[in-house]
């Protein structure tokens, strides 16, 4: 069964336009002008049950809008969506029993109280009977290893601990799908790994479909089988993560700072020039094809190199690359 099915989903906002100045402020009170903003245009995709999907894109690409439509908070301008066979915006309450969400930047836990109090509240919201709640809570507390601090006020927890508690809160009612929005934001490297491991465990043991939005490439690499990239409200990439890695994550960006300036023509075997000024060179190489060492040797021998940096391209760079590859006119 498909967990999520989206067909031609479109969302256009009408934003009030208010030109500056006092006179215009008065005018806009009586005759407001609107501008249409196309947040999401003609989306089509399906998600299978039990899949872990990364839903990524630059800020303003329409990610949040799409998630809001899938959870029923927003209704679309046109198109259809079915989440677990429900129409999200028409059958929101029914759907709510089967989905859970965690927002990295907004907490659902009562700040001054121990997490267990929020869990109890959620058991009432989701209408779990006491026995089911107890069993489920014990199970999740074990699974996510939060037993040590469920009686500590949330404000005293570290971010990593809090995120695990948030996960428990969203899983109490055994939802079939969970939406995770920036779950690892603000976590240190180790805490990120730990949290990702827990999310994987959940997916394995419960078969929950996991829908993640993240700016963190590590999240995508570790957790997700599949990735959808959104840009300007449209899907520009929809495929396996392994594909993405094969194609894009084996690039390296080499940035060279020169001691003496050069502005003659650039020749270097096995690399592509990205940027260039008199004192700087930025090239990219594909480690599948070319050898980093070979390229570095060339650069070192050809130029008077002051400093050299070798990095993986950031996700934004990859996305921009993908965007260019698609040859879109918008």
């Amino acid at each position, binding site marked *: 069964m498909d967990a999520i099915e989206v067909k031609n989903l479109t969302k256009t906002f009408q934003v009030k336009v208010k030109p500056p100045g*006092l006179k215009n*402020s*008065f005018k806009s*009170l009586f005759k407001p002008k609107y501008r249409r903003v196309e947040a999401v245009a003609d989306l089509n995709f399906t998600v299978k049950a039990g899949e872990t999907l990364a839903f990524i894109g630059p800020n303003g690409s329409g990610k949040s809008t799409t998630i809001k439509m899938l959870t029923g908070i927003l209704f679309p301008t046109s198109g259809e969506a079915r989440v677990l066979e429900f129409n999200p915006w028409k059958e929101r309450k029914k759907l709510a029993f089967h989905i859970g969400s965690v927002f990295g930047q907004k907490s659902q836990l009562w700040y001054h109280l121990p997490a267990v109090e929020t869990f109890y509240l959620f058991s009432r919201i989701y209408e779990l009977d006491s026995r089911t709640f107890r069993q489920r809570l014990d199970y999740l507390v074990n699974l996510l290893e939060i037993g040590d601090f469920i009686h500590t006020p949330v404000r005293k927890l570290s971010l990593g601990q809090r995120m695990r508690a948030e996960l428990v809160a969203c899983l109490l009612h055994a939802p079939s799908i969970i939406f995770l929005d920036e779950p690892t934001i603000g976590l240190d490297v180790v805490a990120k790994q730990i949290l990702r491991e827990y999310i994987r465990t959940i997916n394995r043991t419960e078969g929950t479909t996991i829908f993640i939005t993240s700016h963190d490439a590590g999240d995508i690499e570790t957790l997700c089988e599949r990735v959808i990239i959104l840009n300007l409200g449209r899907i520009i990439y929809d495929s396996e993560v392994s594909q993405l890695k094969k194609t894009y994550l084996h690039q390296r960006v080499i940035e060279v700072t020169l001691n003496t300036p050069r502005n003659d023509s650039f020749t270097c075997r096995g690399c592509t020039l990205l940027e260039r000024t008199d004192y700087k060179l930025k090239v990219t190489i594909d480690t599948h094809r070319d050898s980093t060492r070979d390229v570095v040797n060339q650069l070192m021998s050809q130029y008077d190199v002051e400093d050299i940096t070798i990095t993986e391209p950031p996700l934004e760079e990859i996305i921009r690359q993908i965007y260019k590859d698609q040859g879109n006119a918008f």
Partner: protein
Amino acid sequence: MPFNSLSENRPGAPETGLSLRSKGRISRASASPFPALSKGFIKYWAIFSIELKNHFVYLADFILSNLSVIVAYFVSVQLWLIGYGARQEVAGIHKEELIWYLLIVQVIHFSVDYTLMLNIEEDVQSGNITNYLNKPYNYLLYTYCISSGRVVLNLIINLTISLGMTLFFTKSFASSLSGVLQLIPTLFLGFLIHFILQCICGIAAFWVERATVFVWVLNTIMLVLGGGLIPVDTWPDSLKPLANYTPFSAIFYYPAKLFIHFKPDLFVRFLIGQLLWVFLLGSSLWLVYRKAIRRLDINGG
């Protein structure tokens, strides 16, 4: 914020009225024999002006927020007119004079910055206050300037609105030139006293966790005991000491009474009274403030 800060006269920065004026003031100030004093004044004047300008950005919102002034004034005058009934005068205050008395008191009540106490408490408890303490100005003076900006703007708007309302009730002007002029010093001092009281309560947040619970209570007490709802002249004699020995009447009653019944000797008496309260309360505030700052190092919010 489209306005330059005073400390920068960046080349190429847009020439706003503020920067032009401040440039002029600065060059004059350095030539004056008391550069430190003038610089201080300029500093605080600038803070005051920026606060004033800030409100013009949300003018519509700001004007709307004064609409309850209309309601409150209307309700209180109407109540009193009913209360007077057939009588033309009570305890020496004529009907028309009462309407103007209520006007002044009303305007004061709605012009004062009631959120001040809450703001100070929030600054204290969030630890935000440390941001202000390491700037080259005094926190209290800074707060006073910001607060005054709001007060003056409120004053202008409330006065305008309430004046319009007054005409609805009476066509006569129950005051005199001296009555109007005395408003300037008495209002200034009255607001200052109110400001000091609010500060003391706000700073109490260092020791009492939730001083804000008492904000509304305090404000209501101030209003009633200050002659804001019922003129002190009409109080039974047994209660009058309550007005005389508390600072609240210096905020509301003094300006309003002088407005309708100006007498030179009364003016002097009231002015001295206000100055005494400013001195008394001001010193208390200073002591409390110093103590609080010392405690800040231990507590840290």
